[in-house]
């Protein structure tokens, strides 16, 4: 499966990248496990996530072609 990943704000700066494409040998993965796969450690506290531009949780399941975003708590408009 192939997943598009976006990072925003402080997290984008700390990771040094805004986007990446993840290739995985499975048919599905949770948002939390995807983070572990990409970064080798547990998701940081207060991490917010979205799948296909909808708010999601660490146990939300991601499938081939999905768009996943990780970001800090929103500041609001």
């Amino acid at each position, binding site marked *: 499966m192939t997943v598009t990943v976006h990072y*925003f*704000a402080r997290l984008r700066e700390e990771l040094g990248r805004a986007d990446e494409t993840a290739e995985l040998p499975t048919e599905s993965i949770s948002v939390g496990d995807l983070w572990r796969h990409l970064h080798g450690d547990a998701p940081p506290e207060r991490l917010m996530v*979205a799948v296909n531009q909808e708010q999601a949780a660490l146990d939300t399941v991601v499938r081939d072609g999905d768009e996943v975003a990780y*970001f*800090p708590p*929103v*500041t*609001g408009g």
Partner: protein
Amino acid sequence: MAVELYSEDFDPWALVARAERDIPAEARGAASVFVGRMRDFNEDDTVTGLFLEHYPGMTERELERIVAEAESRWPLLGCLIAHRVGDVRPGDALVLVATWSAHRIAARDACSDILERLKHEAPFWKRERLADGSDRWVEKNTPGF
């Protein structure tokens, strides 16, 4: 109902005047408008610039969801959200919320509700540039400020 993001300074009153033309003047007894601008201070510090990051696609969807919820609660004839993104200078308009209704309480309460939700829930992240040249990510909006 419209949600518009601007990467350059926009004229909020011109946008309101334009949006209003789509609503019959005889029906819209009430218009309620809020315009927020970037101040040159925050929490006692002088702020010289602001970078407003958003999530293209999701930010628009969340704003549309906020408007749709207001439309389900109040009898609105129209609604406009305009929001700035990217690099902002002090004095620039940051956010415009405008609501039209036959009645003033509906227009006022819907405008206030949309603004509060936008301030707390919408996917925006702010980084302030301070007078000494340093940057800081804003952690959250202070209620009411």
